[in-house]
């Protein structure tokens, strides 16, 4: 676990990754490393709890696009919850919300993904 990944857990066969801090290139790579390992183990559903991530940059978010692309190959899904308003707006501008889901809470995310 590096400093950016605060925790990982699994609920209803969904891998939930909790982040903490700046989603930059390193943060994006930390998320993708976990996702790709879990995809190799057969997991196809992922949620990212971004309560601790108030700042992102487009390089970090671009790595989420790579994960979305990878998940399309295995008919998988990814979603996010607890987004700061500017993070949510950034995801909208970059079009992530066309290919992945944003939720308000963990319950909503686990039930809605």
């Amino acid at each position, binding site marked *: 676990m590096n400093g950016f990944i605060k925790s990982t857990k699994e609920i209803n066969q969904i891998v939930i990754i909790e982040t903490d801090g*700046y989603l*930059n290139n390193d943060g994006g790579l930390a998320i993708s490393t976990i996702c790709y390992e879990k995809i190799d183990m057969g997991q196809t559903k992922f949620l990212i709890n971004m309560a601790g991530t108030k*700042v*992102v*940059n*487009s*390089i970090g*978010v*671009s*790595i989420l*696009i*790579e994960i*979305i*692309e990878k998940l*399309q190959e295995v008919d998988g899904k990814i979603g996010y919850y607890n987004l*700061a*308003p*500017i993070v949510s*707006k*950034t995801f909208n*501008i*970059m*079009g*992530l919300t*066309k*290919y992945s889901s944003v939720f308000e809470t963990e319950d909503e995310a686990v039930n809605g993904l």
Partner: protein
Amino acid sequence: MKKPVVELKLPILPNMELIATQTAEVVARHMDLSEEQSGEISMALIEACINAFEHSKTENNVFIHFLIEEDSLIVKVIDQGIGFDKTKVEIPKIENKIGKNERKRGWGLQLIQELMDSVEFESNGEGTTVTMKKNIKN
């Protein structure tokens, strides 16, 4: 009365853009901007700094000026790099990136333009100045 200006000089080191956002937050609070506006300015500033750090191909410092106006905040990000031609920058679309052998990056200018009220680019072989304006909402 002379308008207040806050100036920063950033070395090109990892994550230095966060120093710029911390300053932007202080300036935004001083100007009584909303949380939404403050977040938009910080995000645009991050992208402008990253562009300056990555694309200017120089080791010179990047300068940031916050010009506090009565009805707006103007943020200038100034590098002394090789410059760029904005007309050659393609507007990114996620549809053209997903499932295709395209690089996923290249969103900086798009984000800056969406998040700020106006943006101007001046660039030549001696550097680039990005001037971003956020109008104060009443």
